[in-house]
Structure formats: C-alpha cells, structure tokens
C-alpha cells in the first residue's frame, strides 16, 4: 500500500531541483555555456587588453565591452531555461511543486554557473589587461572585479529567468533578447549621454550600474583624456560622478545588483504562479 500524498517542504524541493539542474547540466553538456562565455571574454580581452588604463576613453570603452559581454553571457545562460519546459512545470505545479522553490533552485544553479563564468572571465581578462593593484574595499582590485562581474552576470541571468518565465516559448524568448540587449547597451550611458526620461529608465538597467562599478574600481576619473596626452594644457573640467572611486559607491552598486536579482526573482515566481491558466 502506498501512502497518502505528501509534498516535501519548499526547502526540500529546492534541493531536489538544484540536483536535477546539475544532472541535466552534465547530460546536456551545460559546460558549453562556460566555453562560449570564455570565448567571448577572450575576444573582448584580446581586443581591448592593450588599451586599458592608458586613457579615460579607451578604458571606458574597454569596460563597456566587458559589461556588454557580461550581460550577454548572463542573459544567454537562462533566457530559454524556463519557457522550454513550461508544459512540464505546469504539470509539476499541479502535482505539488512550489513555484518559489522552482525559481530559487534555478537562481542557485545559475549563481554557480555565473560564479564559474566570472572567474573564467576575470582570468582571461587578467592575461591581456594589466589591472591596477589597489582596490576600493580590499587591498587588491581583483576580488572587487570578481564580485562585480559575478553580481552583474547574476542580475543579467535572473533577468533572463524573468523573461523566460513571462514568455511561453523559446522562440518568443529569443525574439525578446535582442531588444533587451540593445536597451542595455543604449542605457549604459557610454554610447550616448542620458538625460530626462532616458536617464530614469537607465536606473533600471544592469549596464548602467555595471559601468558605474567598473568605472569606480578602475578609477576612470583619474585617467587622462586622449587629448590631454597630446595637449597637456587641456584638462578635464569635472569628474563623472557615476565613476566616483569610493568604497561607498561600489557597495551601493553591489546592493543595487542584489536588489535587481531579488526583484527579478520575485517577478519570475509571480508570473509562474499563473501557469495553471495556460491552455
């Protein structure tokens, strides 16, 4: 005789699904995401490597490339993850799976992937980029870059999870992805200066805060303009407050990344709670 229905606790469900994600990672060769991330990192590092930390403009462009690559890697990790198994989740939800457990299991799994990708990205960048030694919080800037990369990738990754929870098919997810990426690139404040409504919208983008964190750790404001190298008498009139090189500023940006992750996780959970309404 079997026993009556019993659903394990939410915490227990998270454990079961984290294990499931890692099994599928092995079987579906999930490490390919790490390899793709490494290739992109190498391309970026190779191109921008020699030009970093000599002028304000070059370093800013280099950081922009790294931030863009990071957002792309994070989004691409997860954007098809949930929508591709939507019918499975609908069934599992009916049989007792809590959506909070399901989404949190993905966040935990993706956090591990993002951490590995961040480490790989930083190692590759370190080969081509000669990072200054000092950090704002730690004695070395390396852990600060690592934490920034990790939190930025994770926020982007969870944004991918949120999109994947809202859309119903992988095709729809891949249609949305370029728009999200373009929005991130435009709103970073690097390609265009942002004013008015666009400045407000930028507050909600990972790219803006990614640039702020990178610019702070790299102390962008202390680097000379290209023109200053040619004409030393020409100096910057003012520094960009977004790249203020203080530990408070960096901690604030990290906090914002964590807030993004939490809010986007909640959006994922809430949107999946309505999965029973799927036809």
């Amino acid at each position, binding site marked *: 005789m079997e026993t009556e229905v019993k659903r*394990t606790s939410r915490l227990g*469900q998270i454990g079961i699904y984290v294990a499931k994600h890692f099994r599928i990672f092995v*079987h579906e060769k999930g490490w390919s995401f790490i390899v793709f991330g490494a290739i992109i990192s190498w391309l970026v590092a190779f191109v921008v490597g020699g030009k970093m930390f000599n002028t304000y403009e070059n370093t800013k462009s280099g950081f922009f490339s790294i931030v863009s690559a990071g957002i792309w890697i994070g989004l691409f990790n997860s954007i098809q993850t949930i929508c591709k198994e939507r019918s499975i989740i609908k069934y599992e939800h009916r049989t007792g799976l809590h959506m909070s457990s399901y989404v949190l299991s993905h966040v935990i799994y993706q956090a591990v992937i993002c951490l590995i990708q961040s480490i790989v990205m930083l190692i590759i960048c370190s080969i081509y980029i000669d990072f200054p030694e000092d950090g704002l919080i730690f004695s070395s800037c390396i852990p600060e870059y690592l934490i920034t990369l990790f939190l930025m990738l994770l926020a982007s990754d969870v944004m991918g999870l949120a999109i994947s929870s809202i859309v119903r098919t992988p095709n729809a997810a891949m249609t949305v992805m370029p728009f999200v990426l373009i929005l991130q690139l435009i709103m970073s404040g690097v390609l265009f200066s942002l004013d008015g409504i666009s400045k407000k919208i930028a507050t909600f983008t990972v790219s803006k805060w990614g640039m702020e964190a990178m610019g702070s750790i790299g102390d962008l404001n202390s680097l000379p303009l290209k023109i200053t190298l040619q004409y030393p008498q020409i100096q910057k009139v003012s520094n960009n407050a977004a790249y203020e090189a203080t530990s408070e500023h960096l901690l604030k940006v990290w906090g914002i990344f964590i807030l993004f992750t939490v809010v986007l996780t909640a959006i994922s959970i809430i949107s999946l709670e309505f999965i029973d309404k799927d036809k």
Partner: protein
Amino acid sequence: MADVQNTVMYKPMPPQPATLVIIGNPENPIYSVKLNGNMTVGRRSDVDINLTSPIVSRVHGQFTWNTSDQCYYYMDCNSLNGTFFNGTMMKKLNERGSRAQRLEDGDILRITRRNPDNPHPDAIMIIYSTSFSINDKWVRYRIADDVNSIKVGRSEDSFINIDDPRVSQHHAVIEREDGKWYIYDTGSTNGVFVNGNPIMDKILLDPRDVIRIVDTTMIFFGDSFIYNITKVRGASLSIDIDEKVVGAIKRKTLLKDIRLEVRSGDMMLILGGAGAGKTTFMKAVLGESKAKGKIMLDGQDFYKHYRVLKYKIGIVPQFPSIRDSEKVSDIVLDASKMNLNPDLSEAEKNKIIESVKNRYSLNEIWDTYYERISGGQKKRVSIAIATFNNPSLFFLDEPDSGLDYANRRNVMEALKTTADQNKMVMVITHAPNDAAELFTKVMVLAKSKKDKTGHIAFCGTVEDALEFFEVDNLQSIVVRINAESEGGEGRADEFIEKYNLLRGNNNGN
C-alpha cells in the same frame, strides 16, 4: 426512433455501500447499520432501522436510493420532533414529510428536541458515510478532568493514535484553555477538517462538532469524543454537473446534466462523439475549468476544497511532461522525494519505490535516459510517478495516442493495475476496442442536435453499453452517435432521450 418502451435493457447498478453510524446516549453502544436501498427509520418494530429512544417517532424518516444520481436521500416523515440535517431543522414540504435531502459522506442527522440548545438525553445522532465501513470499530474516549491537551497522530505518544500512514506522526492537538476546547493542525500533510471545512488556525470546538482526519471521524461532545478505528479504504467520485457554460457575452452551453458515480477499482472509459465535450468534461472534473454543479471526491466537495484536494487527482498528460535528459531512475526517485510523506522511514519509502518499479515494469529501463525509451514505456513512467501522490483518481486524456497496438495495450494494462490498487481511473481514448475487457464502466457523451450541447448518453458496464447501443464493439458506439457529417449515424438525440427515459424509469421504481 426506436421504441424505447420495448428496449429496456439497462440494468441499474445496485445501491452503493453506505453506512449509518448510530449514536445514542452515552450508556448505549455505538453501532453501524448498512444502508441497503430504501429503508425506513423509527421507533416502530417493523421499520428497517429500529431506534428505541422515546424522542424518535414511530416512523421518523426514510432513506431512499436514487438510481439517477446514484445517491442516498433522507426525508423526515413529518415526525413529532423533526430531524436536524447538519444542524438545520428539515422543513415540512407536504403531507409525506420534508423535502428529500441528498446525503453526502459525513452528513449528520440528529433527532432531539426542536430547541437544539436543550438536547434530549436520549437524542440520537446518525452519521451517514460512504467511507466508513460496517466493520469500523467505534470508540468513546472520555476526557478526564486533569487532561488539558490531547495529541492526535500516528506517533505512539499520541493520545489518540491513528494507525494510518496518511495521518501525520503529529497531526493535530486538541487543547483546553479557560474551560473551552480548541483544535489546531500541527503541520499535518493531509489537514484537519472541522464540520467539513479545513482549518487554518486554532479554532474553538463546540459540542457535536465533527472532526475529520483522513478517514477517521471524531465527534466532540464537550466531555468526550467518539471516533472510528478505520482501515484504509477505497476512493469515490460523484459527478453532478448541471451545466458548463463558456463565454461572458455570447454564452454557450457545452455540457448539461452530467451525473455519474465512480468507485475505487473502476476503470471508466469516456467515449464521445465529435464535439461532445470530452475535453470540457475532463477540465471540469480536474477543476481546471469549473462547471456549475458539484463534484464530490472521497466524500469531500472538490471545487470547494480544490487547493487541498487537487492532489487527489493524478493527471497523466497526453504528451509526456517529463524532462528528456534524465534517467528513469532519477525521474522516479525525484517524484518519490517530492511526494512521499517525509514522516515515512527510509525503509518504508524504499519499499514503496520498489513496488512502483515492479508494478509498472521499470526495472529494465531503470538506468536508461527518458529520451531513449519507447512511447509505451514513457507512459508507464508517467503513470508510475503520478502514483507517488497517491491520488484517488487518475484521469488520462488519450494515453495511447501515437502508440502501436502492443504499446496501447501495455498502457491500458498498466492503468488496470492502477485501478486494482483501490483507485479510480478515467480514460479518454479513441481506440477502446484494444482493451475493452479491461474497462469496468463506460460513459458516453453525445452532442445533441437540438441544443448543440454535450449530454450523457449512457453510463454503465461495457456489456450493457453494447446492448444499449445495439453494437458489437465499443468503437461502433461513436459511429452511432456521431453526426452524419462526421461519418456517423446521427442518432445522438435518440440515445440521450433513451438513457434519460431509463434513468427516469429507474428513479420512479
């Protein structure tokens, strides 16, 4: 149209087992009476259920079996003191007595003074149940003055120990505070119901409140309890759909008057003509798109307690909802971890997993990835993992679609195995002939040309269905009721009327 008066071949099913538990004053033993069709109750010696209490009239009331909805009804026969039905006095309708009240598992009839606050010492309480067994032993537990807390559960230190694996180790606590008794759920798996409602917080208990914990019913009297010591029983489903309407502006009725009963061990085939509403019916039964009416699952209102009861219906989707890149072993073990009672020991869990593996022949594919097994094997895995939730009812929409004959047969045999575990199985299939002998019942839905709505055209055994539709195989029933434009004979209305007439005839008998 056929002469329906000459073609009465439908045999009504015998009354379903139901039990009355009769509780008199504390000096008298509690006893059970098996309801067996129409029965009278009263003080007179020639009534079917004889009650000796002076508060009871000579012929007090009558229980009636209704074949159309397969339910018992109770009517007060204009008795002197009347009958309380779930706490409300039954009103006189005419000279014969009150309106007949349909009975559902756990309903309580009380015969006492008309003022319920002044109960007669020889008052009688009658509990109607389709889940109690005539063999259930009833126990009275008197609460000693120095007892202030009563633990209920499966653990041995429970004051009221219920030996049923569906009951949690520590299921509920009944506690005295300032002379009043309260009950609360201590995080049980299957909940505590008081007077039919699941409790969320600590609630006050009034005398005569009925507490239900899985299949154990406890009646609280203020200074004592009575409760049944029960064995795990089978499942029951009572479907009573008045109609299913869709569309807010342009309203369209998709189903009308669908009434049937399913019991544990039943494997019911759902046959239907094109557009007869099989999918609508399925969604209504699953609670995905509720219909106007009532669905009672294991004696509880399914729509009312959907959040709690939805797990009692196991769905095996038409298209497998399992991740391809997992081994069968991982799929089954994860399902067991998700759904088996964590209170169970590892040995108990392993025993269950082994029995599921053997029952659904999973040993040979245990270490194979899901994407590499056959369609029939995939269905078997789907059925197997659905059993861990221990649902009472399995509902399958075309489980055999896309499979060859051998695999179709294989899947149906797996379902029969499931039904044999005291479960109910309902199957929609377009290939019923492959396993006709495995079905215990067949329900036929047909779309009426008159109102363009799905009606029930038959519900009964396979043999009776063949006789009723004058066919030699189940597949041909669909031909009988399908419209001419669908390649059928367009006789849906004829059979709907014939079935209604037979139901009506049987009701009158």
